[in-house]
């Protein structure tokens, strides 16, 4: 089922440069249809935004991409590899990282440990070599620590290094979560409401970090966000969804003008 009313720039086959291709996925919980036939693709280096009302299925789309849910229909390919059916930790190994709407940090651990956990799948130390420590485990620890410190530097988190992150301000925690994703060295970064609950100043900070990450690390990102300013400013393309159905896909301007999007989501203003 293709969408005729809006210009469709995401014919899955069309773009050879696509990193992620989501093709007609459908997801049901019991009797509830959470996602119906959603198709889009994300190009390498692109920042793709998903907008829509609460309960529209945005987060469910994320959960399908990184293996928390398994869609009953459709396929999701990352760099041509089918990832439907993979566990979330396997998608992590494939290079999918994400932040959480309500923060997914490990509150009792400090920043360094949280970021080191991002590198978990890049490290090898097991219980035995960890217990012995001297030798491989220590070398690996030091090497990965260096990478983590680079990220701490990039995101200006140095001042809080050894505090349990649960005790840090919300804005900082959001930034740490972004940092943890970067530590994973992902190919695709999923940002779930990165600026929710932030004031303008914090939002500007976060926006700046997102932009910097994009330009420095050439990262491909998908972002779910309600703050239309952020979406309009940062996204290359936007997809609007409602009731698990795609309403429109296009440049921010195109989507903003779309009557169905205005009716379902934006309201009279904007």
């Amino acid at each position, binding site marked *: 089922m293709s969408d005729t009313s809006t210009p469709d720039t995401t014919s899955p086959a069309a773009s050879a440069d696509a990193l992620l291709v989501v093709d007609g996925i459908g997801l049901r919980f019991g009797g509830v249809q959470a996602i119906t036939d959603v198709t889009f693709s994300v190009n390498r280096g692109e920042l793709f935004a998903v907008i829509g009302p609460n309960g529209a299925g945005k*987060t469910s789309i994320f*959960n399908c991409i990184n293996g*928390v849910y398994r869609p009953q229909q459709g396929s999701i390919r990352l760099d041509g590899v089918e990832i439907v059916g993979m566990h979330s930790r396997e998608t992590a190994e494939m290079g999918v990282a994400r932040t*959480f709407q*309500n923060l997914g940090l490990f509150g009792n651990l400090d920043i360094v440990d949280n970021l080191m956990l991002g590198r978990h799948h890049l490290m090898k130390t097991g219980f035995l070599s960890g217990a012995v420590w001297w030798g491989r485990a220590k070398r690996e620890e030091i090497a990965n620590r260096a990478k983590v410190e680079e990220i701490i530097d990039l995101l200006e988190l140095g001042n809080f290094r050894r505090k349990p992150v649960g005790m840090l301000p919300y804005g900082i925690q959001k930034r740490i979560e972004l940092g943890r994703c970067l530590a994973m060295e992902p190919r695709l970064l999923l940002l779930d409401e990165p600026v929710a609950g932030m004031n303008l100043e914090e939002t500007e900070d976060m926006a700046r970090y997102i932009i910097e990450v994009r330009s420095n690390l050439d990262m491909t990102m998908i972002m779910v966000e309600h703050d239309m300013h952020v979406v309009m400013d940062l996204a290359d393309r936007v997809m609007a969804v409602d009731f698990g159905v795609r309403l429109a896909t296009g440049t921010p301007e195109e989507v903003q003008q779309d009557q169905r999007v205005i009716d379902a989501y934006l309201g009279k203003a904007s």
Partner: protein
Amino acid sequence: MTRFIEFALAGLAQGFVYALVALGFVIIYKATEVINFAQGGLLTLGVYLVYNFTSGQSVPFPLAVVMSMIVTAGVALLFERLVLRRMLGNPVFAQVMVTIGLLFILQNLVIAIWGAEPLNLGDPWGISTISIGEVIIEVRDLWTAALAIGVLVVFFLFFRFSKLGLAMRATAVDQEAALAQGMSSRQVYMAAWGIAGATAAIAGVGVAAGATGVSPSVEFVALLAFPAIILGGIDSPLGAVIGGLIIGVTQSLTAGYQNELFPWLWAGFDDVMPFIVMVLVLLVRPYGLFGTPEIKRV
């Protein structure tokens, strides 16, 4: 066939005892999310108090039970007021540990006061039986069943229709939000402990009536009831009763048929069987048959 019925009935009788004990656990867990290890201690205290009133003061049995319920509830309340309230907001297992501390205290206090010798509860049922056709049923078992069902019905009505019951459920879900509605968590916790204390006294009667007698060993029933609680769902009164019955019958049938069906198994498999049933159920339903799953959101 009569043998099967005999085993099943014996199992049901034991199951109702488990159910009564389990109901006390459930109410505290529902309100505070703490498994109260001292429940067995409260139960022991309750039984000894009944004994104390019937034998020493020669109070009529039903009145003695009510008096014991009141005193046991009072002790439970006092513990909540003096200790657990101060532990609020601390790790759950620190709270559980505190109830274990109380268990040590109650256990030994009871022995210090009444000694360790088994005593006669003084209930009116004794070992009298009634027979229905071929089947013989102990009167005390019928009473235990009636008490268990009675307590269950009272719980149901309480949670469904009373304000305090609603407050208890709300507090269990989100204490601070409940406070914001003007529900006093203190009241709720005290009520839960009070009810659990009273229930413990009733359960104690179920355990120690008839020839069993009053002895410090009645507290072990509380530990044996654990599989019942978990199987039924730790926060569900109905689950407690059904879990209790399943465990009781499973145990009795295992004991009855082990030698015929599994002669190669080591003796005493009936002690293990409840846990096997419990694990099997939990593997399918991690929160028991009737328990509320945590709503997990990503």
